[in-house]
């Protein structure tokens, strides 16, 4: 048999193109749209300045409960009639939030988008929020969270976040709250949050075959009956990494794996080092071939996967590594992961590794931005972070131009191996002594 041994080089590169972006003010709100000719599906997404960062202290989970309460009946119809009406169009109402925004969207064949946007607006602007319904949704959400928190991960995530940012701050508590904070919410909390943040117009994102859509009509539907202007969103939060590492042990008796969450604070989204930092994170832990996955999975076989990255929102950011490793190798896996973070901080990245990282991230801008939903998500990034229409083309150029020196400098400046919080969720009786013996930091037991 003759296999061809010479690896082929690339063919002629295609020019990069992001769909043309259209923006304008309509009916008191903002509209942003992208044209995907010939696409059968269209997406409409209403973006509100009502992210978790807007939730009052001690009311974590408010947005998550409101997201579900929106579908419990509107001024025009009850919950069952609403479900049948929207699903008859072929879509479900998708509502969710992150730190910076609340998003509600529909995805339907393009000719059904006007009807779907009407139903979207009806749920967002005129939900009934009957007290009994809100209480039931709250109780269901608390139950759903208890179910989720029975899985490995959420408790470790919460312990990490609290240690990084301080549980006295909203951003030091879980994005969706926890079962206890949700259970403690009152009907009035939900109604007030809605009236404060859901009756402002916001931004309507539309992606699809625009030749078949009347954008102004869609925007008029989405913004009908709204008022109020933008509200100051607050500046970046200064957070310093801890002085010396700590190991936080979250007990999970009988666990056959240990869940690892390692992290420290990092800069907010608009920081000038955003691109080199992201590349450094990719070399260390962002791709399958990254240093962490190579060593911990491909060489040692300790895990099914391990990844690490810098993630940032408008006001804060964090570097974190996450994995699940077999219980018996918890300590060596932890030591080796910290070792790779330290090595990357001290000696930076190499050109071959950076070459993979930069062309991977650049290429993903072509490969991953195909669907209406993906393009809609890209447009929300432009809106939330005040970025220009040609941002994706500029980002691509910046990724491809990044040099070893600046990426290594970003690793040196923004990785803090000595200030890591090391959260381990596993069978404490089996791993506590080994963890203490690593000398990586004092072992404290989480009360969660």
């Amino acid at each position, binding site marked *: 048999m003759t296999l061809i041994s010479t690896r082929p080089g690339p063919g002629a590169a295609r020019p990069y193109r992001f769909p043309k972006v259209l923006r304008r003010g309509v009916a008191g709100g903002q509209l942003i749209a992208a044209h995907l000719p010939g696409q059968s599906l269209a997406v409409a997404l209403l973006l509100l300045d009502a992210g978790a960062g807007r939730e009052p202290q001690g009311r974590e989970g408010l947005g998550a409960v409101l997201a*579900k309460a929106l579908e419990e009946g509107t001024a025009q119809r009850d919950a069952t009639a609403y*479900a049948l009406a929207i699903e008859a169009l072929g879509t479900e109402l998708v509502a969710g939030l992150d730190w910076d925004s609340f998003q509600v969207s529909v995805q339907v064949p393009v000719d059904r988008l006007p009807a779907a946007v009407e139903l979207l607006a009806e749920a967002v602007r005129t939900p009934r929020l009957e007290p009994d319904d809100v209480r039931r949704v709250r109780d269901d959400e608390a139950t759903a969270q208890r179910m989720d928190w029975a899985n490995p991960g959420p408790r470790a995530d919460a312990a990490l976040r609290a240690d990084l940012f301080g549980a006295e701050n909203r951003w030091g508590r879980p994005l969706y709250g926890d079962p206890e904070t949700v259970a403690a919410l009152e009907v009035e909390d939900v109604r007030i949050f809605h009236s404060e943040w859901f009756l402002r117009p916001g931004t309507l994102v539309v992606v699809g075959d625009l030749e078949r859509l009347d954008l102004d009509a869609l925007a008029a539907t989405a913004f009908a009956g709204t008022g109020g202007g933008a509200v100051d969103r607050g500046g970046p939060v200064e957070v310093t990494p801890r002085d010396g590492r700590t190991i936080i042990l979250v007990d999970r008796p009988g666990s*056959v794996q240990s869940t690892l969450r390692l992290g420290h604070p990092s800069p907010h989204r608009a920081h000038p080092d955003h691109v080199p930092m992201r590349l450094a994170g990719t070399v260390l832990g962002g791709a399958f071939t990254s240093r962490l996955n190579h060593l911990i*999975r491909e060489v040692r076989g300790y895990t099914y996967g391990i990844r690490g990255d810098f993630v940032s929102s408008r006001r804060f950011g964090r570097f974190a590594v996450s994995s699940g490793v077999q219980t018996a190798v918890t300590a060596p896996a932890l030591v080796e992961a910290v070792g790779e973070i330290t090595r990357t901080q001290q000696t930076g990245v190499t050109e071959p590794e950076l070459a993979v990282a930069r062309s991977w991230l650049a290429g993903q801008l072509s490969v991953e931005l*195909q669907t209406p939903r993906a393009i809609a998500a890209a447009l929300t990034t432009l809106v939330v972070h005040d970025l220009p229409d040609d941002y994706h083309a500029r980002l691509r150029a910046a990724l491809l131009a990044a040099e070893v020196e600046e990426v290594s400098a970003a690793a040196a400046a923004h990785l803090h191996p000595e200030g890591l919080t090391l959260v381990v969720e596993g069978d404490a009786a089996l791993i506590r002594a080994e963890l203490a013996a690593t000398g990586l930091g004092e072992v404290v037991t989480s009360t969660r």
Partner: protein
Amino acid sequence: MPDSGFPWPIETTRLDNGLRVVVSEDRTAPAVAVNLWYDIGSRHEPEGQTGFAHLFEHLMFEGSTNVAKTEHMKLVQGCGGSLNATTNPDRTNYFETVPAEHLELTLWLEADRMGGLVPALTQETLDNQRDVVKNERRQRYENVPYGDAWLRLLPLLYPPGHPYHHATIGSMADLNAADLPTFQAFHTAYYAPNNAVLTVVGDTSAVEVFALAEKYFGAIPSRPEIPAAPAGQHVSGTGVATTETVITEVPAPRVYVAHRTHPFGTAGYDVTSVLATVLGSGRGSRLYQRLADGERIAQPDLVGAYGVDLAYAPAPLIATATARPGVPAERLAAGLGEVVDELATVPVTAAELDRAKALLSTAWWRQMSTVEGRADTLGRYATQFGDPRRAAERLPAWLAVTAEQIAAVAAEVLAPADRVTLTYLPEESS
């Protein structure tokens, strides 16, 4: 009703060694999807070798004659591509989506691991990936509440010796016992060009792909005899309902109700797909309306029903619900069974049918909205039904299903005597 669920061109050829090649040109985005379906799944695994097809999928990323260990991932990600592979009872698929100028590299990589894996396979690699897969088993099935439901349902649905009796992840004992020569023989037996379909969708042409396929795959010899999986089309029901109760560390009682229906690709399964959507997809579904909203005995986020699209035996339909606090498992199981029973006795209304078809249409077009979604679909139809063009039939077939057909299929395959019920109970309530 659309005439076709696949309004893009499809061109096909077959190399002399038996490799089938499918191309669908679409210049909308500067990307191409490359997809290989190998007709080898866990249904082919003999007793004592469970989990082999899936472990093999891992080994395919660990180097071949001209590709060093870890280089496969590095080259694909290093050109901006996305890649992965999956194994299920029916087949193993491998896929990459890359910027269009890297099509040739991707085909070279796939050809090298089809024709040149065995010489590169070492004991060290096998041991490493065996550990990775055992960790995958812990992470996905053992360390999460209800994680082993699928592993428990399969042997209840399919008798010993049936190709779907065991789960794809396999048993720890079989994985531990795997030795290098067995794996080398496994590749030689199944990873042959005449047991595979190569599909390319996106910014390229059939002429270009056919030439590249010939260049890179053309010299790989075909294998005259590829071992067939055991037959499984006919599963005789016992006529007695099967129940299993697991008392373990779970946060709330949960019930699964499962039935054998019809094989994917048959008219009966098209009806089952619409039926499953009526039953358990969305807030307008019968299960949600009855158990989550009406009686309020089920948690709203965790109620649903779906068919598992398996093609070589009556495929499973699974309905599930998790109890609201204070609701006993027996009441939940009774409610779930009742709603399933009513599919045969309470006619599906026009509104229910329209809702289900609208949701299925959107789901279909969502799958078609990416080049990789289209490539995997074409590969499936070429492998399982001998012609990728048959992909176009699925959506119109769903849209043609009637309420009478749903009642008839429900009466035929959802009888209580053919039911499998799996119940999880929290430890403290025992």
